């Protein structure tokens, strides 16, 4: 795009499209998981509308997968909500880190922005800050809106067509979630204390699964890893900004 075409357009439009360009890889990467979520949600007892509603209202892939997994295991509703809260708790750090760069927006725009603050959205906004330019609302929405629309639409599609898969067991659908969760666990491997935390949570959750029972193994296992990390000696080099 030449500089003259940028100058002719309102700043908000070019900001929006700059953000929208950055949303393309996020849509490509998240699309298959949206379809998978829809299909698994129906497999675990959700209706097509409920799968769509969850994507539209929660908009957090990993937590939605955790939610339908526990729903399928007939875990108590409050514990499902608590688990989703636990999986999404990392957003607190994103929110704290990016908040000061959005604080000059009108309150309603800030309220909307936090609703769609996902992992890639945080990364895109944080990179924009690092480039030394302001994060505008239109840029932020340009990056977020296409992802939001594709995520909800593809979830609905996945749920609709998921009902037509007769034997999900044969296709390995029942074991796809553990593989997916392992991928998320591996994604955090650069974090300090990652391996001992994973080991602590793995052992604690297996022991709790055997002796306390599902679904408590989730909370007990998670608590073991978090407490382990909190009580380890603090090395200055391991401290980092989220």
């Amino acid at each position, binding site marked *: 795009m030449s500089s003259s075409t940028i100058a002719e357009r309102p700043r908000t439009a070019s900001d929006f499209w700059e953000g929208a360009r950055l949303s393309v890889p996020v849509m490509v990467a998240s699309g298959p998981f949206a379809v998978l979520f829809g299909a698994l949600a129906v497999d675990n007892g959700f209706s097509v509308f409920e799968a769509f509603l969850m994507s539209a209202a929660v908009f957090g892939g990993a937590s939605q997968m955790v939610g339908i997994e526990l729903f399928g295991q007939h875990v108590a509703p409050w514990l499902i909500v608590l688990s989703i809260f636990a999986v999404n708790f990392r*957003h607190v750090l994103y929110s704290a880190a990016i908040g000061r760069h959005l604080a000059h927006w009108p309150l309603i725009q800030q309220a909307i922005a936090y609703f769609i603050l996902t992992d890639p959205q945080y990364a895109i906004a944080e990179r924009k800050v690092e480039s030394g330019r302001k994060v505008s609302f239109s840029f932020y929405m340009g990056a977020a809106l296409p992802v939001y629309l594709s995520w909800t639409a593809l979830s609905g599609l996945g749920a609709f067509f998921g009902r037509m898969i007769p034997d999900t067991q044969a296709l390995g659908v029942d074991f796809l979630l553990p593989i997916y969760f392992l991928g998320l666990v591996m994604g955090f491997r650069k974090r300090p204390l990652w391996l001992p935390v994973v080991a602590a949570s793995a052992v604690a959750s297996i022991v709790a699964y055997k002796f306390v029972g599902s679904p408590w193994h989730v909370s007990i296992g998670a608590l073991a890893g978090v407490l382990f990390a909190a009580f380890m000696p603090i090395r200055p080099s391991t401290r980092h900004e989220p």
Partner: protein
Amino acid sequence: MSTTIWIILAAAVATYLTRIGGHLVMSRFERIHPRVEAGLNAVPAAVLTTLVAPEMLHAGPAEWLAIAVAALVALRGGLMAMFLAGAVVLIVARQFMG
């Protein structure tokens, strides 16, 4: 409304609180206590591990193989690559290992 709808709406509120909460609460503090921060850093890996590890107990060779291959691919590739590798190994291995 059905229980499912209530779960979804409560989950949506809880999720929104995590997304706006950091800004509302933590920005009031000059510093986060290092131990709290270390604990928070461990949250996602700790939670997600509990959804994988117990599954290994009642899995068979096909699932173990799929998980092992997926973990190896994850060291190099992205989430999608490791997921597809794990899924393919799982489907093929189940044909032979049952």
